[in-house]
Every structure is written in C-alpha cells, then in structure tokens.
C-alpha cells in the first residue's frame, strides 16, 4: 500500500488519469471516427483481459473466444430491441449477458477438460464457428436471431433519460455519444483490470498458473483441476459476455459477421503479442493491435501519395501486409511479447545465455 503513497508514482498515476480523461477530446479533433476507434481499443482490452484468464493464467489455448462475445452481444440485442419488443435496462441485461456467456463457457469447458494445446485449440475453434453459424441460421422456423440480416435498432445504454447515443451538455461541455461511451468503457475496463490483478495474486490465480505449468503436479498438491479449468472458462466467458453487451449497445446493430474466426485470432494475438499472463502487456497488445490497422488505414494512402506521387499498392492490402509483418517481427525479436512479466523476461534471457 505504501507504494501508492510514494509521491513519484502518485504523480505518474495522476498524469495517466488526466491523459485518459482528456483522450476522447484530443481524439475528437481528428473526427468522431477516432473516438470510435478508441472505444473499440478499450473494448478489445476488455476482451483480451478476459481471454488472458483462460490462455495467460490457466494456459488453455482457446480459439473460439469470440463466441462468448457473440453470446453477450445477442443477449443484449434480443432483450433491448424492437425484434422481440423488449426494452430492458442495460444494467439488468449486462449481468444476464455475463451469466449466459458463463453458461456457454461451462458448456465449452466440460467436454474439453482432458484436452490441451493443439487439441483444445481445434475444439474451441469449432465451438466458435458453431455459435456463429447458429446466429446465422436461427431465423427459421422461429425467428430468434434474424439470421444474416442481424438485429437493428438496439437500445443504446441509458440511465433514466440520459442516453449515451446522443450529444448532450455536461457541466457546460458538449459531449458526443462516442465520448460518453468512452468513459463508460473506461470505467468498465478499470474494473476488469482490478479484477484481473486481484485474481492473479490469489489462491485461485495461483492454482490456474499451477495447472498451466504442470497439471499432474497441480493434481498432486490437491488442486481440483477439473473445477478450476471450468472456472477459468466461465470467468473468461463472462468478461466476453459483458464486452459483447456493451458492443451491441454502442453499435445499435449486431450480425453474425462481427463474430468470425479472425476476431478470435486477433484477440489471441493481442494476448500473446502483448505478453501472456502479464496485464500491462495484454493491455498494450490490445491497444496496439486494435489501433494499428486503423492508423494504417488512414496513413498508408497519404504516405504513398507523398512518397511515390501515386497509389502503387491498394491501401487495404498494404495495410494487412504491414500488419502481418509487424506481428512476425515482434514474435521473432520479442518472443515473450512486447511487455512480458519481469520473471518471464528473465527466464527467456537466461535461456538465451545458456545457448550462447
């Protein structure tokens, strides 16, 4: 606790808080689109931290994580849109979304308890696809998900008459919809970070890490590996479910397209590239990987024009090319991730010294 009273870190924290609070207004100077990009970055941080529990702590390779995000998003969409004529408040739906996703987490978890590594990855991958295909096809005989058209006109987050979707005046400052969502997301993600940090250094968190390190030894010291793996799946899934609910409300529209395999892979890449199991690393990975493609989208075209005077390569393909190259380079030169935990970093440098 005394660490927090240290004036230097107090100053650092104040600086970060001010920067985070000012960020949406800075971004808004470049247009509301940048505020939306920021919001998605935070949403990805949220998702990556949820997946970090499953992959980073418990060491269970999950390639179908987006399914829980989809479940949360559809739960919100169905309970707060004209599709069924239901308009429940968001603070009721978000916990329901978390519970439904949690339930699906256990459903995915139970048949995979004996699987690890590649085998688990394949099963979870299949699960993710199954959920997406269900969303796509559950429009007949009873129309539940409205199929590929998706669900539109989803209610925005609202507290009483205060809607998050429209511009309003707060203390004399004009705040746009995305800016308001930014603060909501920021509050939620701080909560998720606190939960992650506290879990990491807890009895349950250590048991997860023990399972990741050596499942047999974990059993031998009395850890009920079955229950704890299910718990990891359930916790990770609940985070995905809440993130999905917020996504649904923010977009006002969901369709199965948003929940493809590439999304699962992106979130996994954020966790691995940032530094598996290390919270600051995971946050960094999520922010970089969600903002970089957008920055490239806006940057690649103008730069080409400036350097070559004409468009040599289609900006869209070049964007993904640079993005892919960045991933390869990071993994080649920083195998433990951009910001690994201090212990893991030491371990890799020790291994390097041993080889040399």
């Amino acid at each position, binding site marked *: 606790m005394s660490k927090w009273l240290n004036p230097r870190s107090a100053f650092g924290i104040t600086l970060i808080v001010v920067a985070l609070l000012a960020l949406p207004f800075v971004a808004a100077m470049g247009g509301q689109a940048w505020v939306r990009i920021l919001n998605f970055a935070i949403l990805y941080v949220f998702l990556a931290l949820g997946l970090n529990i499953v992959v980073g702590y418990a060491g269970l390779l999950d390639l179908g994580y987006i399914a829980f995000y989809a479940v949360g998003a559809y739960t919100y969409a169905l309970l707060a849109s004209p599709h069924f004529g239901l308009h429940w408040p968001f603070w009721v739906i978000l916990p329901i979304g978390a519970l439904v996703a949690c339930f699906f987490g256990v459903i995915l978890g139970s048949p995979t308890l004996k699987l690890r590594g590649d085998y688990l990855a394949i099963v979870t991958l299949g699960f993710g696809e199954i959920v997406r295909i269900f969303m796509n096809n559950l429009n007949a005989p009873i129309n539940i998900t409205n199929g590929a058209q998706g669900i539109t006109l989803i209610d925005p987050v609202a507290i009483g008459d205060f809607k998050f979707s429209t511009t309003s005046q707060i203390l004399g400052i004009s705040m746009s919809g995305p800016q308001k969502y930014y603060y909501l997301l920021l509050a939620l993600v701080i909560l998720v970070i606190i939960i992650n940090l506290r879990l990491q250094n807890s*009895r349950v968190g250590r048991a997860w890490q023990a399972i990741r390190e050596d499942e*047999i030894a974990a059993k031998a010291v009395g850890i009920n590996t079955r229950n704890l793996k299910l718990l990891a799946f359930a916790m990770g899934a609940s985070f995905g479910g809440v993130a999905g609910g917020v996504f649904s409300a923010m977009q006002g529209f969901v369709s199965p397209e948003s929940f493809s395999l590439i999304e699962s892979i992106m979130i996994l890449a954020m966790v691995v590239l940032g530094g598996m199991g290390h919270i600051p690393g995971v946050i960094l990975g999520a922010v970089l990987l969600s903002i970089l493609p957008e920055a490239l989208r806006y940057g690649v075209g103008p730069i080409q024009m400036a350097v070559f005077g004409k468009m040599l390569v289609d900006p869209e393909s070049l964007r993904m090319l640079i993005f892919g190259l960045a991933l390869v380079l990071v993994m080649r030169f920083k195998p433990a991730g951009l910001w690994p935990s201090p212990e893991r970093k030491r371990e890799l440098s020790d291994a390097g010294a041993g080889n040399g």
Partner: protein
Amino acid sequence: MRGRAMAELLLQANNVAKHFGGVQALRDVSLSIRSGEIYGLIGPNGAGKTTFFNCLTGLYIPDGGGFVFDGQPLLADAPHQAAERGIARTFQNIRLFGNMTALENVMVGRHVRTGAGVLGAILQNAATRAEEAAIKQRAIDLLHYVRIEDRADDLARNLSYGDQRRLEIARALATEPKLLCLDEPAAGMNHTETDELRELIDGIRRDGTTVLLIEHDVKLVMGLCDRVAVLDYGALVIEDVPAVVQKDQRVIEAYLGA
C-alpha cells in the same frame, strides 16, 4: 524401533494390482505403513515402485485391490482427494511449476488447506487478506525449513538441482501431509547433498510426518528407514526391518540378478 511395533497403521495396501497391456506392473502388493515411521520401498529398475506411488496418489487407477488410509478407504482416480486426505508426494523427475517463483510454488501447496474463492479474491475482504498473509508466512517458513529461503523469489526452473528437490519437498509439506511420499529424492545428488537430505527426512519424521521413501541408494535406505519393503517384477518380496532385509537371500538375488 521395536517398541513401535504396535503403533497404529497409517496406510494399508491390500492386494494392489496394476497392469499396462501385457506387463504386470504390480502383482497383488500388500503392505502396511505405521504412523511415525520412515518406510523404504526399494527394488530394481522397473520393479513397480513408482507405479505403486501413482496408484497411491490417485494418478493411476489400480486394476485390483485398494488402499486404506488413516482408517478410511482411498478413492481411486482422485489425486486432489489424496492430497486432501493427507498424502503428499514428490516426483522422480522433478515436477515443479517452473515459471513460478519458489515461494509461489510452496504457496500453491497451501491450496488444499485454504478456501478463498473468486469472490474473496475480487473483494479482498479481511478474511481473504488474512488467509493470504497466512499462506505466505507458512510458505516462507517452509522455505526456511528446507533451507532455500534465499531463493524465494527465483523462478523454480532456475534453481539448482538439489534446491529443486528441496523445493518439491517444501511444496509437498505445505499440504500438511500425514504421509509424505518421496520418489527417489537422492537421485543425482552427491555425498554432501545426500547427507543433508538424510537429515532433512529424519527431521520431517521427528516433526510428526510419516515418510514413504522410494530410493535406489541402498545405503541411504538402510541407514534411514525403520522398515523396508522390496519389490521385484511387481511383487512384494519381503517387508521387514533393514537388518533382516539386507540378509534375505531373495533380495540379494533380485539385486544381483543371480
């Protein structure tokens, strides 16, 4: 040690059998371990010693027979319950949580004797914080006990071989076992290290934990154990005090292959 002959039984193995395909790894092994003794289990390579350990600690399900521990039968196929009942073990090929610190390894050992859940961890209520502090203190004490307290913050994988063996014992002790099963703890150790290990095991017994020891080092076993059982081709050859076992013709044959 004769005076302890009537001491209560801690573990009884009754006709434990296990085969892998056509190989009979354990043939109806029956033996009994008394509270407070150091019990040695020896035999040539492939005699079934580790298989016996794995059946006892729930990693394997015996094909026949079973165990009675502390007056109650042990459930098969439930390793975490074996630890809960008070059976802790180390592994022949050390199995530590390599990317966790030495201290964290021992703290994991406290899992089965503590109860904080997800909610406690998130809310950090007084009870959880107190439990966490107690877990840490106990783990530090155990690191002192096996004399590797100065390596507390090092990753387990970076510890020296001897220290890793000690850490594994500390982690097992953290579960508060009634019976500590050590699978070849002296393997790969030099003379000094083996002597220190002997002292450590003797100390553990003095502090009230019964020890079951698998070991290749016959000198160590004979000097340390109150009673010794010999396995050969999965069958129990003899179970007696070291002086008798050493002179037994069948044991000499098993070891010399005569």
